[in-house]
């Protein structure tokens, strides 16, 4: 039983570290702010959440210590990180950062133009 839980803990932490690595790769590889934000706001969220979950399980199983603040940390990250991604991309758009290889970029541009006229 303990062995199975140990394997689960190791899996959680390795997956978390791998996802954080993928997020860092994505930030390096993608061409503009918005696509980088995709990688940073999703992979880093789940990566940190799963590392925290692994930590929580480790201290609960091995040491018998139920650390509820780690669980609160998971919930807080889960709530705040998509909002942070949204705010960064919105601030980038409103300060005029261009998109990379656009196809249907016009939607927001048209809306902004019609707002300026009024």
């Amino acid at each position, binding site marked *: 039983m303990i062995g199975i839980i140990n394997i689960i803990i190791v899996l959680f932490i390795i997956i978390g570290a791998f996802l954080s690595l993928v997020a860092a790769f994505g930030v390096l590889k993608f061409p503009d702010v*918005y696509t980088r934000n995709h*990688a940073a706001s999703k992979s880093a969220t789940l990566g940190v959440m799963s590392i925290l979950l692994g930590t929580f399980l480790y201290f609960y199983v091995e040491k018998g210590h139920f650390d509820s603040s780690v669980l609160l940390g998971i919930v807080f990250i889960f709530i705040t990180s998509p909002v942070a991604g949204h705010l960064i991309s919105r601030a980038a758009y409103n300060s005029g950062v261009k998109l990379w290889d656009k196809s249907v970029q016009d939607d*927001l541009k048209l*809306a902004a133009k019609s707002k300026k006229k009024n």
Partner: protein
Amino acid sequence: MAFQILLNVFLGFLWMFFTVSYEPVTFLKGYLLGLVIIFSFRRFFQSRFYLLRVIAAINLVLLFIKELILSNISVIKLVLKPKLDIRPGIFALPTVLEKEWEITILANLITLTPGTLVVDVSEDNKLLYIHAIDIDDVEDAIISIKDSFEKAIMEVSR
């Protein structure tokens, strides 16, 4: 909904005072009995029986987690693919949700969906501007997903 929960807690306390035992287990028993009472008197309340909304909220949380995992898999695929053949773009999505918290939850849910990220919400709360990482093949599929999200959120707020 809040009124029904408050009434249920009150019924739980009432049961504790009836049986003159002040244990958590007694409160739980009273709470379950109160649940049965509220269920049988559900036609006198304005809103639905509140347990249905609690179940809908739990469903929404599970949907959040599922979408987070799926979107991570899709990001991993994009990052680890050697060729960079993405076509990003911004499209507008009309929404039928009206309350502010519903729109916030929808925007968070969309941000955690595979390949989409909310850039802006229009001033009259009718349109969400979404940055998609692969605009041509995803758009239709995503709109159908949004329908299921909107339905799940409306299931909670109804």
